[in-house]
């Protein structure tokens, strides 16, 4: 099929439509940024003001309260939470991606008895609601003496993540068998084939899984809630809840902290979006 380069007018129109469609998704972000720069009394419309909080005159902070950011950093130990979250993210990403890749390679390229039933069994674990395994897992980690430590939040990642195993297996299956055979004929061990041939070819899917794992760990609320009882060990997602009290709460500080919370994720996504989208497309996990 012969492709034609769209004209400037077509591209402008496309961008205009996309920008309009993006507005509903951007509004909460804009409101968050706007609120993070307001005093509490300015956040919600008062008598005589335009009722909609999304009206332009309500969105522009005046005066701009930059101090909300420094106040938020002081109000809860934000940097401690950030450090804890970073540790968990790094360890979870490394453990989940490496362990899942090894398992996925086995399912994709090694022949062994009960391979298919085992793979189906693995897929079935994805259908198990987290609530079903929550209590047995809790009891297990408690028996191991890990309650109150980071270990229950890290170690499960070292044993493979079913979704990642599935995605990687699908990707590994797209690598031509002839290529792997030729590597074996050259004398490569299975481990060498995996490490020196398959892994370098699988950067998109590895990056996709890494990003998924990073986001999952970054946003994990329930894990820290269940296993951590020491405020010095709290993560950002859990620690941010500390800004809110049931009948109180500083929205301005919460939004400033939230802006700082999502900034690393946004930066990471923009840096890796090309690889991420490639990974999604090649593993057929769109939609």
């Amino acid at each position: 099929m012969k492709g034609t380069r769209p004209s400037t007018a077509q591209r402008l129109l496309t961008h205009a439509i996309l920008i309009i469609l993006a507005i509903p998704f951007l509004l909460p972000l804009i409101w968050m940024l706007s609120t993070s720069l307001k005093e509490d009394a300015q956040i919600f419309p008062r008598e005589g003001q335009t009722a909609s909080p999304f009206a332009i005159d309500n969105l522009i902070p005046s005066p701009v309260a930059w101090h909300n950011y420094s106040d938020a950093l002081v109000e809860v130990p934000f940097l401690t939470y950030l450090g804890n979250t970073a540790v968990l993210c790094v360890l979870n990403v490394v453990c989940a991606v490496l362990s899942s890749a090894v398992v996925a390679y086995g399912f994709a390229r090694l022949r062994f008895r009960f391979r298919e039933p085992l793979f189906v069994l693995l897929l079935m674990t994805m259908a198990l609601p987290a609530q079903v395994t929550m209590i047995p897992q809790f009891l297990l980690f408690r028996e191991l003496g890990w309650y109150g430590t980071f270990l229950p939040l890290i170690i499960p990642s070292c044993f493979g993540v079913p979704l990642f195993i599935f995605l990687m297996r699908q990707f590994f299956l797209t690598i031509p068998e002839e290529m792997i055979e030729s590597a074996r004929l050259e004398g490569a061990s299975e481990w060498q084939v995996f490490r020196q041939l398959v892994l370098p070819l699988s950067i998109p899917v590895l990056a996709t899984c890494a990003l998924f794992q990073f986001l999952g760990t970054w946003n994990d609320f329930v894990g820290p809630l269940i296993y951590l009882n020491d405020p010095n060990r709290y993560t950002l997602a859990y620690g941010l809840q500390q800004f809110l009290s049931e009948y109180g709460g500083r929205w301005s500080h919460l939004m400033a902290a939230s802006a700082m919370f999502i900034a690393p994720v946004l930066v990471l996504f923009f840096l890796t979006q090309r690889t991420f989208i490639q990974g999604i497309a090649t593993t057929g996990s769109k939609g």
Partner: protein
Amino acid sequence: MSEDPFYDERSSRDSHTVRLAYVRLDERRTPPFMPWLLRGLAALTLIAAITWFALPAPMQRQFPERLPVRLWHQWTGERQPLIDAIVAAFNRSQERYEVIALAVPAVVSDQKLMLAIAGGEPPDVMTQWSPTVGSWAADGLLQPLEDLLSAEDHRVLREDGYPVALKGAQCHGHLYGIPIGMNNFACYFRPDLVRAAGLDPDHFPESLEELVAWGRKLDRVDAQGRLERVGFLPSRLAVFAPLFGGGFKERPDGGITIDNEENRRALTFIGEVYRHYGYERMIQFRASLNSGSLAVEWPFVSGLYPISVDGQWRVEQLANYAPEVEYRTAPLPPPKGGRVNAGFATVNLAFIPVGAKERHGAMAFMRFWSGLQDPAIAGTFNASGGWLPPLRTTVESPDFQAFLKKNPQFRTFITAVDGPDVEPVPPVAYQVFFTSRAWQAEDRVVRGDKSAEQALKDLEAEVERERGRRSRLSRPGSPRSGAINGVAP
């Protein structure tokens, strides 16, 4: 590029991937598996070690020689220091126990508690302000406390405590929680807006009918007929029903009074106000407002609800977040021929979960916080938090009296909560179920989906089904069954 010894070979092949394979295989110099694995493990260990040591040390105990008493509470955010102050005061007051407090967000505290109990790691004391004691006691999550209280404690709770505080803490003849605070409801109104509407704020309505008439005068509608301000909008059937002579009370057979004439009149009254404005118009108006649990987003502050029925916690919020707002409080008036001094309240409880390791330390702390040990100290705590104390002597304490002098609008709530006809959500085994379904029933009426009669009839049927289900799942006569003296639904 041409100096690369592999260049020609690689360029002769079509597939980049095949090139890679050949290059990598030609480059192999190390034995295949173990060194790579060891290098990987070493790298992982290094990362883990660096990050582990970079982490802050776990929180150190202040009094490691004492018996630890672990407290989980729900006062997060800016309210957390209030609890920390109570804990610090207790730890200073004696030398046997150290209370270690943990703030757990209210929305997930139940989940954390259940899992901790199932896993054998519950706290020694837990607080809860939602009406759950009946369900939790029936589910075997709480310990009865009678044996931990002295005769004097029982007497103080019975004689000095507000009746509703004890009603909200007891379930099937056992005391499962120590009241540490209460929440009740009254009218907040804006004198500035009332005056602007030509009304006299010094003469607040003495009947619901008059209150509705006041509200109509405060309404404001824009040129397109959209509501801009609603003078008075009733909500919470549990609050209004007692004024009509009804309310939700536990029946002798373990059920709850739901579908009766008084409750029907109360729910009809609420529904009629919405019908007057038009259900669709009302839904649109409410959708444009915020949920309002926080002071800054409460529509009363923005003047959109000039008369609001709300809890005593708003007094503290208004003082902190909207000190410029002129407001007053008044008891919610009954309808003509209705019942005076009747009302509804919820009770903040501290309780001991099953499996708690330090029961006596837990009770010592609960006695300290609640005022059973010293009402004057509890008066200080309640004044600092703007809480409604469960004991009358606490209200009389110097610090709390100073608080009332500073916040005179709070007195309305003290008066409103002190009466034999003030009721909590009945602490039955299906309490949590009932609370959520009662809200839904009311919501259907104010949306115009059901009549008050139908909503209450359906609610009663639903609740009876749940009571029956619980009864079938449990031994006859146990608290879990929701039946008393073996009378099953």
